């Protein structure tokens, strides 16, 4: 029954979505208030229906109903409850249901909290949002129905991939989707603006919170995935430039650019056409990511089970949504007239520079990701584009931007003084160079980018703090500084934290990418290994058990200078149902770096095991930096100026109406 209910509500949701997609849009064009008024209730109702459908699927998993194909393929009674629940979205069909759920959540949120939006704009936005949903409902109902039944029902299902049975990874898809789908809101706003033929400061203010929320989630989701890869996959790596990782990174780059350019639209009435295009591009990249993961055109560790019919359907969806929006853009964007003028050296100029670098970087990543496909399609043979390419291309593109990030906030709007800004940044420059030199002298065997990264990280961190101090006049008028700090708008704090967080993350990336130390050997109990100034002692291995796995549990003691500083527990798990082993590394996180131990197979009969030991410098700075960035974004979101929107406009309108 539950499966049929879930299926039925999904079909109903499609019907409601069709209504929501058509009537408010037409109503806005014809100034029909009744039809426009349909937007909010249909959005709410659609959300309710999808929520019920999602609840049904969750219930099926929780109760282990193996008469449903999706549950039988991805769940098992022996699995812990957390993974039964995360199994809902750990597969192709379920994850699509999560997609539409989040689409519906955002739609309902605009319906509920977008009271200060002009009705016509709100109607258009919700209509466009619903059109996207219609595409996904059709995709699900025709090719990827999560509620398909299985006869005869097996006694027990297969398992969720043991690698996915992990708390970090359980939440990685929901966060990512909140990001991807959140950008659909900016997309809908952009389409609505194109249809209306107008973009103004008010539009930018409305778009900003939704874009910021999506950005926070996407940053969090990517970080979670990276963190998981680091502690789970067993050799301390955290980014592989895998096609699906790139598919999440490109919308992030475009989304960050969008946040910055929306500021220019809002404050200076410029870069309108460009911002609208960016909003379209950001969501298009999200959709493209969906295509890449599920169609089988690229080989990737992340790919879901692939099916050619699905690939064709998603491609059709892509063509309609992206092609349609870009066609609309080609037709309507010339109508958007920008009036703000500014010098190349100015705050707007710096924001424009951010945009140029971010989009160039995104384009480069897109090129690398899709190149094997292009070359094969024109018969040029098979080629691989791996981390060496991406690192060689991405890092040099980003370096100028990171250097510029310290200047940007110090420049005035419209016309900035670069020399004065640099004068303020003297300390940052000196400390940056000191860090560069110190790193170079201390670790001469690292790659040049890592050393450069440390210098840039310090430059950015000190530069950001300098701007903050200058704004509060911390050193020139220290008396009132605390008051000035407190009165600073939250969005400004958001920016400071965002930039500072990035500096921390860059330091972490430089450390982890540049100076990792590794040691592979067979160890007998009691044997010691020296690594990076630490002494690892193998304390032997024993057998362990979990709810659905057996394990070899290895224990290590780490000493520095004779003193014990950590005990590490590493596991090699075997999941009999899933049929594959996983490693759980023993990690001790310290500010200077992570001590990381992995246990492998036994060697011989006398208790010796293969072990891998690592010292990964500064890794934790990446996670801390990312969290600081997300926190900054959340802080920005809570800035009242953005939640209130722009009621001034309606007041001005009322004044004009009164005066006329």
């Amino acid at each position, binding site marked *: 029954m539950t499966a049929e209910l879930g299926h039925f509500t999904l079909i109903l949701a499609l019907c409601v979505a069709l209504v929501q997609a058509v009537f408010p849009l037409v109503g806005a064009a014809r100034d029909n208030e009744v039809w426009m008024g349909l937007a909010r209730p249909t959005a709410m109702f659609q959300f309710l229906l999808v929520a019920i459908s999602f609840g049904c699927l969750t219930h099926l998993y929780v109760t282990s109903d193996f008469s449903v194909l999706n549950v039988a393929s991805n769940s098992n009674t022996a699995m812990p409850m957390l993974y039964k629940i995360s199994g809902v979205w750990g597969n192709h069909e379920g994850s699509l249901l999560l997609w539409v759920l989040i689409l519906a959540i955002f739609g309902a949120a605009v319906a509920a909290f977008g009271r200060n939006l002009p009705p016509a704009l709100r109607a258009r936005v919700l209509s466009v949002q619903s059109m996207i949903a219609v595409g996904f409902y059709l995709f699900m109902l025709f090719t990827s129905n999560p509620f398909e039944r299985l006869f005869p029902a097996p006694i027990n299902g297969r398992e969720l991939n043991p690698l996915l049975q992990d708390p970090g990874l359980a939440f990685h898809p929901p966060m990512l989707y909140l990001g991807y789908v959140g950008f659909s809101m900016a997309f809908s706003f952009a389409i609505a603006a194109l249809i209306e033929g107008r973009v103004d400061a008010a539009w930018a203010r409305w778009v900003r919170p939704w874009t910021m929320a999506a950005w926070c989630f996407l940053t969090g989701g990517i970080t979670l995935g990276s963190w998981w890869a680091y502690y789970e996959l067993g050799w301390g790596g955290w980014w592989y430039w895998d096609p699906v990782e790139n598919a999440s990174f490109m919308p992030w780059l475009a989304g960050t650019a969008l946040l910055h350019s929306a500021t220019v639209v809002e404050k200076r009435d410029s870069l309108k056409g460009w911002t609208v295009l960016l909003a379209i591009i950001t969501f298009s990249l999200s959709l493209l990511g969906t295509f890449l993961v599920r169609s089988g055109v690229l*080989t990737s560790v992340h790919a879901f089970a692939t099916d050619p019919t699905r690939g064709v359907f998603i491609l059709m969806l892509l063509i309609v949504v992206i092609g349609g929006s870009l066609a609309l853009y080609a037709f309507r964007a010339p109508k958007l007239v920008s009036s703000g003028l500014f010098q190349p050296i100015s705050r707007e100029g710096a924001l424009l520079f951010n945009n140029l670098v971010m989009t160039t970087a995104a384009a480069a990543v897109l090129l690398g990701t899709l190149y094997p496909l292009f070359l094969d399609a024109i018969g040029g043979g098979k080629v691989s584009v791996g981390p060496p390419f991406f690192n060689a291309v991405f890092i040099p593109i980003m370096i100028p931007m990171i250097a510029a990030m310290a200047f940007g906030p110090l420049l005035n709007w419209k016309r900035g003084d670069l020399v004065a800004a640099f004068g303020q940044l003297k300390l940052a420059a000196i400390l940056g160079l000191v860090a560069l030199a110190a790193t170079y002298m201390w670790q001469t065997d690292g790659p040049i980018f890592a050393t450069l990264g440390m210098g840039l990280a310090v430059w950015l961190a000190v530069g950001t703090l300098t701007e903050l101090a200058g704004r509060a006049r911390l050193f020139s008028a220290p008396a009132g500084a605390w008051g000035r700090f407190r009165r600073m708008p939250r969005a400004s704090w958001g920016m400071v934290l965002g930039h500072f967080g990035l500096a921390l993350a860059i330091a972490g990336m430089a450390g982890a990418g540049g100076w990792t130390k590794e040691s592979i050997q067979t160890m007998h109990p009691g044997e010691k290994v020296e690594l990076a100034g630490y002494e690892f002692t193998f304390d032997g291995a024993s057998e362990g058990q979990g709810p659905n796995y057996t394990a070899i549990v290895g224990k290590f003691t780490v000493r520095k200078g004779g003193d014990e500083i950590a005990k590490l527990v590493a596991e090699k798990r075997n999941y009999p149902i899933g049929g594959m082993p996983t490693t759980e590394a023993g990690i001790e996180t310290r500010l200077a770096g992570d001590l990381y131990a*992995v246990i492998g197979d036994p060697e011989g009969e006398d208790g010796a095991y293969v072990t891998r030991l690592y010292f990964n410098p500064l890794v934790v700075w990446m996670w801390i930096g990312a969290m600081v960035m997300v926190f900054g974004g959340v802080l920005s979101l809570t800035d009242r100026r953005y939640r209130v929107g722009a009621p001034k406009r309606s007041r001005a309108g009322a004044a004009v109406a009164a005066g006329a």
Partner: protein
Amino acid sequence: MLKRLLLATALLFAALQPALAVDPAEVLDDPALEARARDISKGLRCVVCQNQSIDDSDATLARDLRLLVRERLTAGDSNKQVVDYVVSRYGDFVLLKPPFKFATLALWLGPLLFVALALIAAFAFFRRQRAARAETVAAPALSDEQKKRLDDLLKGDGS
């Protein structure tokens, strides 16, 4: 349907082998040779996996390729000779860093082209801005009568 799903997921399982790749038994005695072997392995793609190097991968073929690399290095091959041998068997696909040849020209030059386009776009944008600014700044010349009126206004109006 289920069978296809099972097969695909099985492939996914097979590919996503974490745990230990390089076995201590594979490690060469000569540290310099071993370092070269690791370096080369990191640049060779595991052809049966979903995007890993043979250094990272647990697959049997990856292990055999690692052993082959070490054998050839021990026999005296240079790094280039070892890599060329593997490429002669599997093609450029096996190189994680795409080679710089005619087929990959667009790949390597692409990012440079994007940077150039970005700069051109920026220049064009600022030039258009300057033209727009020049337009608003350039006011039509005043006629004599208008100039007189302006003088009167400026002198007479004391505020």
